[in-house]
């Protein structure tokens, strides 16, 4: 006897088929290399000499006694807790005001988006020239005004904040566009109704805009935390982890051990430690934001 095809089973089959192509690509080209890396992390593997010896978890243990790893971990955390709030708040503010559609808003939208479509390598060269404490345009501008100039990228106490700010400069436009897309889908009618009830712009923001963009805000927060834990590009091109390891973040150290020391086993182990940290944070956030999401579809 043929089983009756219910709506939910038809839907489930459609759902499975629809994720299948993506899943296949991800499984072969992303998950498999990840598994391979995990396997490497259990060995003392010099990838160039191809010498391998099984170590179990001792690479992982070693990391926690490695001063440089701990320093990188600290720097990564400092980077994230500085970078993410500044980035999300500034992107949100800019998006909110752009949403009001003041004259010239379109120009500013493109201007702020410009850094994210420029290659990081170029940005590093340009900033190096602008911010150089001795020959940079900005420094000499300050000197002419009578101030002391300094090279913020070459000074250990300021290098981290410099790197954070460059990151914010680069990605603010990107996040602004995402948040704008969220703000844009809030129907105009809601604001009009609130306006008629006498609510001011600030009240409107907190009672209407904010609650409705919580999902997209959550998305922004989660994706930015994931990527800021893995910050690498601007550090690689601007400071190479210096001066004096003050900007060395985890992925930079992982890269150094993997590509300069050829110690892929240890590098992979550190990457998996980082992964666990990110996973925990992400799951916590997903749960927190998940409660607030409305799910449409089948009851």
């Amino acid at each position, binding site marked *: 006897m043929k089983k009756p095809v219910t*709506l*939910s089973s038809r*839907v489930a*089959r*459609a*759902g*499975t088929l*629809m994720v299948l*192509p*993506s*899943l296949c*690509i*991800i499984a*072969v080209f*992303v*998950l498999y*290399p*990840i598994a391979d*890396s995990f396997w490497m992390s259990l060995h003392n593997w010099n990838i160039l000499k191809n010498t391998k010896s099984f170590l179990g978890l001792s690479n992982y243990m070693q990391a926690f006694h490695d001063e440089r790893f701990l320093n990188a971990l600290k720097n990564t955390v400092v980077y994230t807790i500085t970078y993410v709030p500044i980035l999300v708040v500034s992107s949100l503010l800019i998006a909110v*005001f752009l949403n009001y559609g*003041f*004259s010239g808003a*379109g120009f500013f*939208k493109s201007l*702020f988006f*410009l850094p*994210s*479509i*420029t290659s990081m*390598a*170029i*940005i590093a*060269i340009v*900033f190096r020239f602008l911010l*150089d404490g001795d020959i*940079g345009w*900005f*420094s000499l501008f300050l000197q002419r005004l009578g101030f002391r100039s300094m090279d913020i990228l070459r000074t250990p106490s300021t290098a981290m904040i410099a790197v954070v700010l460059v990151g914010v400069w680069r990605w603010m436009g990107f996040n602004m566009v*995402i948040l704008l897309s969220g703000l*844009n*889908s809030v*129907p105009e*009618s809601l*604001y009009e109704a609130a306006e008629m009830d006498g609510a001011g712009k600030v009240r409107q923001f907190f009672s209407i805009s904010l609650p409705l963009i919580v*999902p997209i805000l959550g998305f922004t927060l989660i994706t930015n935390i*994931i990527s800021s834990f893995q910050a*690498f590009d601007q550090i690689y091109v601007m400071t190479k982890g210096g001066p004096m390891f003050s900007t060395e973040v985890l992925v930079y150290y992982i*890269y150094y051990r*993997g*590509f300069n020391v050829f110690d*892929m086993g240890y*590098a992979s182990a550190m*990457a*998996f430690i*980082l*992964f666990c940290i990110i996973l925990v944070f992400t799951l916590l956030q997903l749960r927190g934001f998940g409660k607030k999401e409305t*799910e*449409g*579809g*089948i009851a």
Partner: protein
Amino acid sequence: MKLSKTANGIILFVFSLVGIVFFVPFLWMACSSLKPESMIMGHPEQMFPRSVTLQNYSSLLSKIPFGRFLFNSFVFAGGITIFSLFFDSLAGYAFAKLPFKGRDVVFVLVLVTMMIPFQVTMIPLYLLMNNLHILNTFPGMMLPRLTNAFGIYFMRQSFLSVPGDLIDAGRIDGLNEWGIYQRIMLPVVTASLSTLGVFHFMYNWNDFLWPMLMTNTTDMQTLPVGLALFQGEHVMEHGPIFSGAVLSILPILIIFLCAQKTFIKGIALSGIKG
């Protein structure tokens, strides 16, 4: 939303101040692309060129196969964008609206792929591509990127905010799941698709590490890899690098501006539904 003239003015003023921080680096870069190398090195503190020269642009075009790099970048970034938009939206829709067994676990698995730095997985991936004999080819470069966790997550987010009534209406009309996706869902999320499309394009347009690893010959290399030819170990040719940067930004900027228009159209569509 209407703003009073004062509010308009204040916001414009504040934005202009912020805008300066964003504008100055690009101004310096564009100006420097028009300066002779001697001026860039001899007087880096100056903003505007004392004498404008187009030599950097002509060097750029004559010293490297710029046209070829441009073409390769278009194919690489453009191809990935098109396929990715398709796969990401398909998967994103399913994750958002079509419950199936284990869906949430699989979704987390997809997210997991964003949490391992590429620097670690790129060697195993490279070796895999080598075993498949597709190094230094477009399929080799593009396959791992045809779908992407960020894109799937983003589209899922987008579909989540679409009301379920639309789907029910579609079912009543007799559409199957695929039809609903194609005829009802996609049009509603065009704004998100535009946005995601711009993101995929720009990410892959500027990507250096992966194309660099995968390509060996100039006929396959992309623009960022090609521009790196001006970066010597001891001596950098800044002029051509800057002019290359200016020319690199232009295509994406144009695409972004075009996507904006679709963006606004998409908004208008969803705004009506209220």
